[in-house]
């Protein structure tokens, strides 16, 4: 992996900033849930922050993203604003989706967050279509499809990769391999040792990286995105990672061996990135603290505003089903 492009200092700091936003936001969601303030099926991305942080520094506002129920990390990295996000989690009319979508369907087109889906595998066909549109537009836009290791075994994966490769679409397929699909291990669901090997079956570039390593993830994503922008087609990136909060909040993850869990926690990528940014002299500890403090303040403001906002009125059931309001 040594021949991958490396992030410069400013980029690395930006990656840190995104990772910090994701981590602190996640901690805040979990806290709100534990406090009984928020009741929602929440699929924490804690432990997976580096993947979208290191990827999205190479994206711009014109690029599109499809992600999954476990997706607040992808969204925040892409630029989904905190206010509409929290208001949506809280089910308010001020939420990005007016409270109709919720945790699993967060959408914010202005930042390119086009679809969040609760159906395993379904981010891929839609991202393929977004890639097709980008290709037709001819402006160098790309589409990113996020999905998990479990999703790599469902039919939609296959159809999407074949089509995207056949048409050389600018799609980045990002498989966030956290080694578990709900309670099932990678080995018990997948007949191949490295998912990136499946890329060859579509004549596609495929690579497995340590998704928790900012350099590796940045480099692999940069190459894939540059290739996509240049019209050279899609890439499958398998980013190895781990989720720290089980499948969803409430899952005690008793199916994960204690040592495996402890080892993953010991390699928590967020404090490691923080330490590295400071050690490399990219920012001082005080500067990093200031960044974190600013992020936390932004989050608090979003939380406050969210819970002060109105809940939607039942008349909303008649709106947005079709373009016209139902009688």
């Amino acid at each position, binding site marked *: 992996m040594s021949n991958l492009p490396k992030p410069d200092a400013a980029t690395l700091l930006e990656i840190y900033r995104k990772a910090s936003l994701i981590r602190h936001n996640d901690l805040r969601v979990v806290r709100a849930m534990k406090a009984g303030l928020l009741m929602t099926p929440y699929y924490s991305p804690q432990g997976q922050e580096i993947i979208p942080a290191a990827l999205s520094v190479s994206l711009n506002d014109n690029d*599109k993203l*499809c992600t999954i129920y476990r997706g607040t990390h992808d969204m925040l990295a892409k630029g989904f604003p905190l206010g509409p996000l929290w208001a949506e989690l809280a089910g308010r009319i001020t*939420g*990005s*989706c*007016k*409270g*109709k*979508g919720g945790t699993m*369907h967060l*959408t*914010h*087109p202005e930042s390119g967050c*086009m*679809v969040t*889906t609760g*159906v395993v595998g*379904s981010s*891929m*066909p*839609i*991202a*393929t*279509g*977004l*890639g*097709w*549109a*980008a290709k*037709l*537009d001819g402006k160098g836009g790309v*589409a990113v499809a996020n999905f998990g290791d479990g999703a790599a075994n469902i*039919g*939609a994966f296959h*159809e*999407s990769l*074949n*089509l995207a490769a*056949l*048409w050389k679409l600018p799609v980045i397929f990002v498989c966030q391999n956290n080694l578990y699909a709900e309670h099932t291990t990678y080995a018990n669901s997948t007949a191949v040792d490295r998912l990136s090997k499946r890329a060859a079956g579509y004549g596609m570039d495929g690579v497995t990286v340590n998704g928790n390593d900012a350099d590796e993830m940045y480099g692999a994503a940069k190459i894939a995105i540059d290739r996509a922008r240049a019209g050279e087609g899609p890439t499958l990136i398998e980013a190895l990672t781990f989720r720290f909060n089980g499948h969803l909040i409430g899952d005690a993850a008793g199916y994960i061996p204690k040592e495996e869990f402890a080892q993953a926690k010991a390699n928590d990528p967020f404090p490691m990135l923080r330490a590295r940014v400071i050690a490399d002299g990219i920012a001082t500890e005080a500067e990093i603290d200031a960044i974190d403090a600013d992020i936390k303040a932004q989050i608090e403001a979003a939380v406050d505003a969210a819970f002060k906002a109105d809940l939607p009125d039942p008349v909303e059931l008649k*709106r*947005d*089903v*079709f*373009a016209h309001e139902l009688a």
Partner: protein
Amino acid sequence: MTTETMNTIQAVNLAMHDALAADPKLLILGEDVGDLEEGGVAGATKGLSTAFGDHRVKSTPISEQAIIGAAIGASLGGYRVVAEIMLMNFTAVAMDMIVNHAAKLRFMSGGQTNVPIVIRTMTGAGMSNGGQHSDYLEAWFAHTPGIKVVAPSNPSDAYGLLRGAIEDPDPVLFIENLPTYWNPAPFTREVLPLGKANVVREGSDVTIISYATMVAPSLAVAEQLAGEGISIEVVDLRTIAPWDRETVRASVEKTGRALIVHEAVKEFGVGAEVAADLNEHLFGKLKAPVRRLGGAFCPVPYSKPLETAFVPSSDEIERTIRGLVA
């Protein structure tokens, strides 16, 4: 607006042609749709890729989930797409994309996004295609909030409604009948907005509510019984969901008797909703029970006598009407 003769496959072709010409953001997608592939097994898209470019009229692999997914994604990216699922039974392969995504994205995004796609599909008993190629499944989609369902009964409606579906801001499932593709009829080239039923024949004793393949035999029976003084009004729903309750209720209020006929299996079919609605809204005003005719309760069979017996016949329509007015 000139009247000439045309069949449904030509009408559908012309509708896509005119729509492609009218809107540079319109795309056509599906198996074999390009001219390299002869514009589809029935030729519905013949000539379109040659006329508008194969970047706009794109043949796909056999990947129905990716076809609908690509259509959804492209529509989110600012395009309109007509995506073909060759036969209606194969919507089952793409059902997740259609009902969990295309139909729901507008609502789930709180109106931020919408999916202006048309899913064209063909079906119908009559060609010995058997159980996996002949089903009318419109009831599944009518029961799915967020997607519209359209089924033309003749070439002019096929043209007009397909153009209406393409211009519609919501996803539309557009159902064509395969066995009658090549039947010619007088033709009018006019865009039809969705949601309006068509009173194709006026009458005063009984209303037949129908769509797609069952309109023609309904009209034939109406014609025949007119000679005996039984006056039948025939309403072609055209848009099955959302259906034109007002027109249908007004007609049945006038006649006092209703028969719903469709090729789809009767049980839990579209006719059930129409019957339930009419009974509720016209309680006490009906002169006879609302009757329904539909396909037999079984997969569509292969052997000719069985396939014929599966579909409601003119005889059954006639007998049911006689029962209603007796």
